[in-house]
């Protein structure tokens, strides 16, 4: 083997390593992303396709159901995400505390819901929240509280979806925080304690700043996840009652696969990309400005 062929070989090598991934990625991800944009410019009805330009997007602007779906999605975003992250933060601080016994048990238990699949826990929550005979209403009854029409009342259906999301994802976020907390040196806390800072001030001035990167990460991930929300409402309520839990993801799916209006479904998808990008930009911009 000459020096020349060795060099040529190693110049080619990196491309061969990444080639399978890139080919698959281009064929099954990039190509459909482009195709769906083209689709969004066509009106589809059954097998018929006709050019409509921005027609689907114009229809979107005047579609009350789209705005309702967007509103539902944003409601879940601004209510469920902060509540979940606050609970996760509390859990992480507790899990990191010297006062807590049996830590491995807690780490295991709180992470367990993360492993259960979306359909699994959607069905499980649906059964527990069953208004007529679910265990949650029985519990409310025993406590002397009024029973609730969990999945059948528009307001409570939304609450049900939020409860399920919180149950499923809190542990995931707590683990991210916990890893970061364990990286904050004990000396910082000891120095602050020596200076007379109480628990609350230590949390505010050491814990929170130390967690900043992790907080930003979880906010961005949860925002993207919530804006794409589909499985939970689809399984638990099918988007009902009265479209109260129809998210953009559910609306996109129904448009594409129940009414087979692929052109309009693609326009909804691109609207979603636009909204997610705007949120992503705002969040990273805010994070930078704070620095």
């Amino acid at each position, binding site marked *: 083997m000459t020096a020349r062929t060795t060099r040529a070989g190693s110049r080619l090598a990196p491309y061969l390593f990444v080639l399978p991934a890139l080919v698959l990625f281009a064929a*099954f991800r990039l190509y459909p992303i482009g195709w*769906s944009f083209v689709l969004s410019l066509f009106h589809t009805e059954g097998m018929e396709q006709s050019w409509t330009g921005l027609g689907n997007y114009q229809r979107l602007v005047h579609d009350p159901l789209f705005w309702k779906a967007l509103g539902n999605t944003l409601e879940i975003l601004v209510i469920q995400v902060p509540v979940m992250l606050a609970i996760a933060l509390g859990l992480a601080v507790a899990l990191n505390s010297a006062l807590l016994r049996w830590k491995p048990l807690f780490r295991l238990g709180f992470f367990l819901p993360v492993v259960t699949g979306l359909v699994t826990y959607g069905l499980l929550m649906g059964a527990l929240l069953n208004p007529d005979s679910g265990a949650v209403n029985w519990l409310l009854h025993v406590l002397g509280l009024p029973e609730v029409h969990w999945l059948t009342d528009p307001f409570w259906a939304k609450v049900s979806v939020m409860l399920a999301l919180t149950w499923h994802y809190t542990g995931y976020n707590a683990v991210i925080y916990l890893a970061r907390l364990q990286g904050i040196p004990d000396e910082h806390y000891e120095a602050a304690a020596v200076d007379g800072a109480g628990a609350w001030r230590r949390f505010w001035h050491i814990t929170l700043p130390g967690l900043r990167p992790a907080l930003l*990460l979880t906010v961005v991930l949860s925002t993207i996840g919530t804006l794409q929300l589909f499985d939970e409402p689809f399984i638990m309520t099918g988007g009902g009652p009265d479209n109260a839990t129809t998210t953009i993801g559910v609306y996109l799916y129904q448009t*594409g696969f129940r009414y087979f209006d692929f052109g309009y479904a693609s326009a909804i998808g691109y609207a979603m990309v636009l909204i997610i990008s705007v949120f992503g930009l705002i969040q990273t911009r805010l994070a930078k400005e704070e620095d």
Partner: protein
Amino acid sequence: MARTGPAFRASTRGQVLLTGFMLALLALTVAPLYWLVMASTHSSHEIFTRPPKLLPGSDLGANLSHLQSSVGFGRVVFNSIALAVCYTLLGGVVCTLAGYGFAKYSFRGRGFLFSVLLLALVVPTQLTIVPLFKMMVDLGWLNTYQAVLLPNLALPFGIFLMRQSMKSLPDELLQAGRIDGCGELSLFFRIALPTMRPALAALAMFLFLFQWNDFLWPLVVLRDPSSYTIPVALATLTGSSDVDYGQLLTGTAVSAVPMAVLFLFLQKHFVSGMLAGAVKA
């Protein structure tokens, strides 16, 4: 630094309070899963009696046989296992090779290609399912394993995870191998791969879990009940107005319990993998 007497006494009281509070929260978290396992052993009308059944019943077998007759559950479980195993193996190869390539070589277009991969994380999967579905129809691949597997093999999360773990491998080690006349491929197999063991374990678990729990894409491309996976089959059960919760919850338990057990034994890898994927930003 040292804890003084009074502070220590205060902290034992704090210990009891905090641990007690966390135990209550833990019970709340785990209760739904416990109830699920118990419910799977009861018949439909027993499940919703008051108070809820908190002890095992004797209907697990009956529920399973109802599942078998209504959705062909044996076949469905087989599909789920086969798909998850294939996906773990094939996806593992694709992601590991790419992660290694991105971490250990500098080549033209590397930065650009990698950021395109990451950018795709922001594009919702729902956007691509319509064209992907049409592709599968055109290829005649509906109801096939390859239709389920191929679109997600190059999983950006997996590639990212492997790239992160490969970065800690010293370049000198690879350079020394090259000087000894080792080819690029055998460098990968003999030097890089053995050091990647923990990351490979994490990757394998994530890929398995991802495929086992995936719902939307299999729901779209699997149209024939004999090709269904567990989540898809369970979702069809809820479609009827008169849901048989006995079989539904038994199927749900079959889907959840093996993963929970797997997690209990391998949680170290799960958590380390999750963090390796998350530390970036």
